[in-house]
């Protein structure tokens, strides 16, 4: 009987000790958890802020158009398909005056029945992009009209043309696989 009582007493004591330890641990855990929670909130806030600024700034680097052209030549076969064009061509085919913009790169096929062309324009102000986009839209539409009745593969290419704005840049490409040029453009800026 005595032994049993003693055992019971011991068990109680152990339980109490455990509870005491448990309570103090609970208090410690709460403090640690609070600290961790604060860090987590800060981490989420920092990430959201970072993403906001990256998205707002469009993450486009201030890359000279010449560098993008070098990347295009290095990573694609653009030189085999198209030829570099100058200020007059830009005005003649795209209706854009080079003096209105920071810089540009314009490649166009030399084939009479070809529609492949690539244009990258870097504008001085972001608001100028709308005008460039309108000019490109107009160019694509007029090309579609021109080839509509006799050039199904050309029309397919034109319908597949990529026009993309990023930061102060506008990218336009009509080609068999315009995505590969777009990819280089995206990587470059």
């Amino acid at each position, binding site marked *: 009987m005595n032994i049993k009582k003693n055992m019971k007493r011991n068990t109680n004591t152990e339980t109490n000790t455990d509870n005491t330890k448990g309570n103090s*641990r609970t208090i410690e*855990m709460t403090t*640690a958890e609070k600290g*961790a929670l604060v*860090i*987590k909130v800060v*981490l*989420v806030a*920092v*990430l959201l802020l*970072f*993403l906001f600024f*990256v*998205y707002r700034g*469009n*993450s*486009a*680097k201030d890359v000279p158009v010449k560098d993008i052209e070098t990347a295009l*030549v*290095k*990573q*694609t*076969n653009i*030189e*085999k*398909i198209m030829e570099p064009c100058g200020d007059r061509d830009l005005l003649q085919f795209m209706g854009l005056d080079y003096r209105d913009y920071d810089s540009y790169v314009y490649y166009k096929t030399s*084939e009479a029945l*070809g529609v492949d062309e690539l244009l990258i324009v870097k504008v001085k102000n972001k608001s100028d992009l709308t005008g460039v986009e309108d000019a490109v839209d107009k160019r694509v539409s007029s090309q579609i009209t021109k080839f509509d009745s006799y050039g199904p*593969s050309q029309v397919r290419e034109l319908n*597949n043309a990529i026009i*993309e704005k*990023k930061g102060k840049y506008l990218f336009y490409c009509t*080609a*068999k*696989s315009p*995505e*590969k040029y777009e*990819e280089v453009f*995206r*990587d470059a*800026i």
Partner: protein
Amino acid sequence: MLFSSTIFIFYFLPITLVIYYAIPERYLRARNGVLLAASLIFYSWGEPVYVFLMIYSAFLNYFSALQVRREQHEGGTGKKNLLFAVVMNLFILGFFKYYGFLMDTINDITGANIKYTALALPIGISFYTFQAMSYVIDVYRGTVGPQKNFFRFALYLSLFPQLIAGPIVRYRDVAEELEDRTHSLEDFGAGSMRFVFGLGKKIILANNLGALYSSITALPDGQVSVLTYWIGILAYTFQIYFDFSGYSDMAIGLGRMMGFHFMENFNYPYISKSITEFWRRWHMSLSSWFREYVYIPLGGNRVTVPRHILNLLIVWSLTGLWHGANWNFIMWGTYFGVLLILEKYVYGSRIEKLPAWGQHLYTMVIVIISWVFFSITDIGQALEYLKTMFFMGGHPVANIKTLYFLRTSLVLLGASALCSTPVVLEKFKKLADRYPRWSIAVMAGVFVLSVAYLVFGSYNPFLYFRF
């Protein structure tokens, strides 16, 4: 910065190695510091803004792993903190890699034409995010202890040899080497040779194959033929292998030069006799990542047959999606998922009964077809390409262009086929054992030729850069 660039080969790497080895071996912390600084410079070369994202990711995962362990130490499961880390990592990856894809899909389905800004993809984000997640999951599982030193963990995540295109190195595989590693002349020599081999694969083979494939895909409709398209996709098949495995070789070699031993990423995949075997040999670090962290937690093959089929389809569509945010990649992944299911449950045993050449042919035809979906992002165009390959495009079997491409690229394609088998390396090893000086001359030749191509050639793409 690319390994296959003159800036890296003639400036960045020599400077890093000189500073690294100028520090006595007993000061490993200082050497690690040099490596960390070099890795951050390497990354910021192309991504001055995104280097902050990389540092953020390092801190997020370092902190999360410590929290997982703290929670477990206090009697919890650690699940809450694990979930936090996984959600945050997937959110970052999703935002940069899949946001544009999601918006395009919504616009296509609803016709809403919601305007959005396409963001540049931070280089190597898929690789380092997967590495970071594997670390936190391993800490949660108790496979590895959390790293208490933030700089050491940041070094693991940003280590420049494997930063941009893998292999996806698991923390537990390099944990010891981060804290204590030995450097030997033998390791340095073997690493240098591996690097030069990789450089040769990339510059001499992959770039030339890429130029061939590009010329063929740029052909106007009137000049296309069935055989020309087969030559084109064959060139791409070899290009993607030498491009990616060459980069992996360079990464493994560079690691070894600095005392790290990364896992192998390729084991001659084009000698496989089945698709199952192909995936045991191709991009092994990614396959094992998906097996360990997705397939097995889903139940693996220890489930009912329908559930197993579902598991395989989930894993393989995710593998496809990992490669790129586009439907063609999902299709590519699912294509392999379906074929693996068919091999497992329908005709696998029959394939095994075929003669060896039949098994190779079966595997290669399936693999070559898969690269059509991989290389052409527009599914309509990919199907057009396939139709032509299988005489359904209304193009002639061959024409004058076919003869031109055959005549100009037969040697290149033949050499590529030979180099994608173990034969060449085995012969080289025998040569190296017998005539060490000759082997050094061969390596020097490969290096000089690669550099010549780099300096004088203008075509130097890298396919896995965008992943």
